């Protein structure tokens, strides 16, 4: 009976593959990209960071159904917090990540108390409004945030006191790839937990979840704060690797881009973030190099094509191929 439903504990031989297979794939692809394009490490590092950011959207939007367009507020909170921590307290990188995560989670929890009581269009508008308010505060509080100029020359100590960030960005690349893999692993475990299933249940039918005794808003607040911590980590990584933080880290454009990247990759799966971000970034990079004025048009067409013809995004397509191959093989 139990073989009807996926029972991870029964697939003993492939257990390790099931447990960390996707993470190994991320490492392999990341290292391959770094070896083939050694001059583009800065660009690949950016992809790593935005992948973490988009994973946070995949958790909040894709799993729990919180339709937010203000995720950049949490990314920005993490990057400003990490930058200020490095400038005024300690330039040790791991403590900076922790501070970024706490800032993202804290801002998410505070804003969540307001926005998570609403749904649909109201929630979207409130999430945008909250991010804009935070942006304006960062703009006006120039004595802390540097205002329009942002914060520059953010110091970063060597990792574990031994590995210094180099000019070529090799360490920055490895550091962000490691962070991406750890975050991805933790989130995959999270959505396989009872908590993760409950989130999908809330996305499916809130009334049903209330009727079985689930404190719906408390759940959403919890998952939103976790998403905030992940976005905050991405923001902190951005501050540490670029050593500058500006208002763009809080902007609406970043929130919208994250959602577009996730839509291209596939909203319902974490892997959608990991497929969508590189696709979006590479298409944008290539088209902007060819014609700096019309890249947005290409991205627009890409988005329309995915939404119309690939309902599950790139992940849905890959999954279908894989299943077909699996059927053919057995």
């Amino acid at each position, binding site marked *: *009976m*139990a073989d*009807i*439903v*996926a*029972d*991870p*504990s029964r697939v003993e031989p492939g257990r390790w593959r099931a447990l960390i297979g996707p993470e190994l794939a991320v490492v392999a692809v990341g290292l391959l990209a770094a070896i083939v394009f050694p001059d583009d490490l800065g660009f690949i590092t950016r992809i790593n960071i935005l992948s973490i950011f988009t994973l946070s959207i995949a958790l909040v939007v894709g799993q729990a159904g919180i339709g937010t367009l203000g995720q950049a507020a949490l990314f920005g909170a993490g990057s400003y917090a990490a930058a200020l921590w490095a400038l005024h307290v300690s330039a040790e990188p791991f403590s900076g990540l922790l501070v970024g995560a706490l800032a993202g989670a804290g801002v998410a929890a505070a804003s969540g108390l307001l926005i998570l009581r609403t749904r649909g269009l109201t929630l979207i508008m409130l999430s945008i409004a909250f991010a804009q308010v935070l942006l304006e505060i960062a703009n006006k509080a120039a004595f802390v945030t540097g205002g329009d100029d942002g914060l520059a020359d953010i110091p970063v100590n060597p990792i574990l006191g031994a590995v210094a960030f180099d000019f070529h960005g090799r360490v920055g690349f490895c550091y962000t790839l490691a962070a991406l893999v750890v975050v991805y692993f933790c989130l995959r*475990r*999270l959505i*396989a*937990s*009872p*908590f993760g*299933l*409950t989130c*999908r*249940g809330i*996305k*499916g*039918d809130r*009334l*049903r*979840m*209330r*009727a*079985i*005794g*689930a*404190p*719906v808003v408390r*759940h959403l607040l*919890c998952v939103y704060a*976790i998403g905030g911590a992940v976005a905050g980590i991405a923001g902190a990584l951005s501050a540490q690797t670029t050593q500058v933080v500006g208002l763009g880290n809080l902007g609406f454009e970043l929130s919208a881009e994250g959602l577009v990247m996730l839509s291209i990759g596939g909203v319902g799966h974490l892997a959608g973030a990991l497929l969508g971000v590189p696709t979006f970034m590479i298409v944008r990079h290539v088209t902007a190099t060819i014609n700096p004025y019309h890249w947005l048009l290409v991205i627009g067409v890409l988005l329309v094509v995915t939404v119309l013809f690939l309902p599950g995004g790139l992940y849905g397509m890959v999954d279908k191929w894989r299943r077909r191959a699996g059927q053919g093989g057995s």
Partner: protein
Amino acid sequence: MTERLRLSGLTKTFGGLTVASHIDLSLNDGDRTALIGPNGAGKTTLINLISGALAPSAGDIHLDGARLNPLDQASRTRLGIVRTFQVSRLCRDLSVIENVSLALIQRHRAAFRLWPSARRDRAIRSEAIALLEPLGLADKAGRLVGALAYGEQRLIEIAIALALNPRVLLLDEPAAGVPESESGVILDLLSRLPGDLPILLIEHDMELVFRFARRVIVLVAGAILFEGTPAEVAENQQIREIYFGRGGH
């Protein structure tokens, strides 16, 4: 017979409209009570009041002697007030076993466990299969709920209610939307529910009511018009006129 649920003077008004008017009702161990009445009589409203989806304008609800009024719906469910829905409310994008597991996770207070554990997952899975087995749905455990026939979805609705280990079960038209040929399966399931569990059943299918219930309550315009055995209800001329329409059967 110990009393589990007691409603006293339960009243609900929306502006000038009274949808529940001074309802006194108690459910004891093993009660099989059916609630009937014409459309708009306030039957589902009464379930909403008991389960906490609506707050009463006046009156009290007690479970095992404790007053429930200040508790919200989720807390009442945790105490054992369990309802089903007139129109199936299931997570259609989740599998059958996942839908049942959601309820088990709530009952085991595991919903805030952020990390999977093979042992806990296995325990929940086998408990879910044990609930689905008698409904003949164990072999469909991995299927998406949205892909099942409506009659099967109604059965899952009841399986979820049972997964919550109810102290009182409120069934809102469990056979609604199920073709007559399949409603026998539902009745069969109802007759196999734990004997000491008090059940309040809303149903339009009179055959099902008369075969299931030992007590029938007739609700008209938010007030209890009559209470008695199925035989008494069937013989009552006034109810025949109001409920079954003039001319009767």
